[in-house]
């Protein structure tokens, strides 16, 4: 079920009313409702893959229980690794089997040996990368004794399958989300209104910005040989806004929806395109995934301790694995490696944590230096997105080669250009609103709250109408495929 579908518009109010009709003190019944609603939400796409979620939930719940009883370190380790191997095994099979097989075959044929191996027609279960990481975080935290395992199987199943963030995150830590399933949830008016505001902003990002940008990005990337360098630059910029609007929009809707049910999810995007360097960008982009890799991969590898070579190795590993997490394609690995290259100069000079505050805090405009820093960081990320969006590495290099040609200085031209003007204006308005709200959890959080009610509501209606007016042709959320 898509967040921007009529199905969800009917589903959400029904579940919301039932949930609060049960009453805040009936935690177990509320959790049962969440599990049922979540399975319905997921099964709407393909009910067969619910088996994976149920299996994963039972497995990690059981391992959590066994870990508390087991005191022998070697046996505890065995339990941990069995969870990791099974969970990553599913992920590896569904997501990476064909990739490894094809590369294996290609490697052999490179050395003149032909082997017969048939690719499988595997459907990637939606959200598998997200809920796998979420359940893994539980087992690892229990193993490390950072978290007491829950004895409530329903609460645990609700934690794994919680529908707002089941298919595209944010990847919640068990330490943050799981305890919320065992506490009494009371309806909170202001929290719910806040949730609705965040949903509204998320829909705007997805439906207006991402879907409209996608139309142009798709045309340009799919026919890149026919366009001038300047148009290809614009195509990459459109993709940058598409992926940001799409994914952060999804996160906003997920967080807002959770708030309607009395849950607090962590911020997943903190205005990354206003970052002043790549280090800051990665602290603000897909925060739940970055911190997951930091805590469960980077730090266990040694983090920033050890020799310079070890540190560089760790940086490369985390960026490449992060890229590979997005999909079984060399383009994602190249995207990760490129970001590692961007990051290393800052890291080696120990300047990767110099921009921890909000840019131009208490000022309306950034300084010229800040503006240059933001623009150059944005330019670097846009360049990296070319690898992310390209069909394959060859396509990415062709695209870049075409950009750096004489046609770079031609005026951009499109086959379908009647809406390009309004779209550029929309992007500017969007950036302005994001800029005004950059100190908050999401742009609309405090924006206009001190204005008269009529102004505030007129603003909200303007957003609603623009969603209906400028809605692009519906595109699936990009991160569903991850």
């Amino acid at each position, binding site marked *: 079920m898509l967040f921007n579908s009529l199905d969800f518009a009917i589903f959400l109010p029904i579940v919301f009313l039932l949930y*609060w009709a049960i009453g805040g003190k009936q935690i177990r019944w509320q959790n049962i409702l969440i599990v049922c609603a979540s399975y319905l939400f997921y099964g709407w796409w393909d009910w067969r893959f619910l088996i994976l979620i149920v299996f994963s939930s039972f497995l990690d719940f059981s391992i959590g229980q066994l870990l508390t009883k087991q005191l022998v370190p070697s046996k505890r380790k065995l339990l941990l690794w069995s969870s990791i191997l099974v969970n990553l095994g599913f992920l590896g099979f569904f997501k990476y089997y064909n990739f490894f097989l094809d590369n294996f075959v290609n490697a052999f044929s490179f050395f003149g040996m032909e082997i017969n191996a048939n690719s499988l027609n595997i459907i990637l279960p939606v959200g598998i990368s997200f809920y796998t990481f979420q359940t893994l975080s539980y087992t690892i935290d229990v193993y490390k004794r950072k978290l007491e395992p829950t004895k409530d199987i329903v609460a645990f199943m609700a934690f794994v399958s919680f529908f707002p963030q089941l298919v595209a995150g944010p990847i919640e830590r068990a330490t943050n989300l799981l305890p919320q399933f065992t506490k009494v949830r009371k*309806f909170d008016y202001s929290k719910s209104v806040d949730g609705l505001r965040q949903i509204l902003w998320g829909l705007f990002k997805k439906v207006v910005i991402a879907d409209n940008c996608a139309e142009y990005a798709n045309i340009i990337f799919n026919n890149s040989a026919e366009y001038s360098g300047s148009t290809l630059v614009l195509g990459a910029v459109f993709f940058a806004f598409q992926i940001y609007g799409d994914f952060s929009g999804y996160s906003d809707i997920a967080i807002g929806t959770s708030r309607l049910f009395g849950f607090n999810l962590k911020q997943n995007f903190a205005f990354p395109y206003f970052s002043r360097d790549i280090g800051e960008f990665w602290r603000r982009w897909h925060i739940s995934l970055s911190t997951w890799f930091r805590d469960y991969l980077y730090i266990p590898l040694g983090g920033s301790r050890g020799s310079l070579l070890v540190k560089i190795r760790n940086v490369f590993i985390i960026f490449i694995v992060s890229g590979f997490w997005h999909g079984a394609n060399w383009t994602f690995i190249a995207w990760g490696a490129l970001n590692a290259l961007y990051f290393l100069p800052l890291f080696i000079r120990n300047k990767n944590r110099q921009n921890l505050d909000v840019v131009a805090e208490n000022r309306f405009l950034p300084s010229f230096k800040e503006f240059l820093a933001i623009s150059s960081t944005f330019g670097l990320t846009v360049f990296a997105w070319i690898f992310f969006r390209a069909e394959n590495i060859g396509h990415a290099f062709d695209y870049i080669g075409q950009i750096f040609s004489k046609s770079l200085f031609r005026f951009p031209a499109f086959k379908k250009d009647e809406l390009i003007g309004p779209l550029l204006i929309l992007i500017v308005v969007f950036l302005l609103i994001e800029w005004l709200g950059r100190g908050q959890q999401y742009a609309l959080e405090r924006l206009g709250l001190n204005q008269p009610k009529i102004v505030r509501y007129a603003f909200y209606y303007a957003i609603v109408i623009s969603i*209906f007016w400028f809605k692009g042709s519906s595109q699936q959320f990009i991160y569903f495929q991850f």
Partner: protein
Amino acid sequence: MKQFVTKLFFFAFIYVMISIVTSYFGSYHWGNPWYSTKVQFLESQKTVAINTCFFGSSKIYRHINPAVFDETLNSGEDKVITSFNFGAPATFNPQTYYLYEKFLDSKLAEGVRYCFMELGQVDLLSDKMLHQDRTNYWQNISDLIYVQKSVYGNKDLTLSKKMNSTRNYSISYMEKVLFLGTLRQSMLSENYYDAQYLGEAKNGFFPLEMELEITNDTVVKNSLFNRRMNFEADNAILNRRTDRLTKFYATSSSYFDVVNFQRIKKLILKSKERGIHLIFIVSPLSTNQKLINLSKQIPDMNLIDLCDPIKYKDMYVVENFFDKGHLNSKGADIYTELLAREFDRKILKNR
């Protein structure tokens, strides 16, 4: 909680009101590019002298050539009939009724004396038709009720088919009311203008082989090409359908869609009030027993039945077909002439 739900309801209510108000600024035909093009074309003409119009699906659009129709009926200088084809692909019942009723209320209907409409059964609205402008733009509460009455009174349908139809119509209706992503399109009719749809003679007739020849849309071209090739490879389907039709005409059965019939009577009456004689056409290959039964209920002066394979053998000759469901230009010309002669015999000569 109560305050939250109440406020949310009012917020949504005001939005629905806004969308209803804005819908009055759009055209009634905005989601149907073929029909929309034709209306816009006629409205842009300084003088519109048409007095005969055809409404319906591709079985009107691809089959009735107004040039042949006019030529057959007009002798010498005396121009009795000037016709125009408003047919559009997949414009089924009740969409056709909706468009026709709106047409009657429009300025274009002034001066029109005869209207022909394809007789069709209520469409169940398949899943593949969902979330499309052309499925949503005409939805309204009275047609929603009409469809439900017809569907639930249909004893040939299973409950699951009935329920699926209710679901699909309800979704489409809600999408229309909320203008999910269509507000802009509904206000900008030029989004739905393509001069090609008017046909070569700009009379609304556009035969399929002509479209196959001139279209630049590769998807449309490939689809038409495949349809043509499939028919050439296996045209026995035409014989099977003809046999079935022959049986239908031989069967004495009286079961028909009463709800549809009531609507037809209202349409005839409303047309009469506007000085228009409405004639329903049973097109060749309208393979449905209920539809044939329904046609028998319609007053003779409001019906022309050209479907019977025994009576109209020429209409079922392989050479006259483009694909398994549509006539080619030659077939269309034969059919149009036949229609004109039948119209002349039944209506014009009995005025």
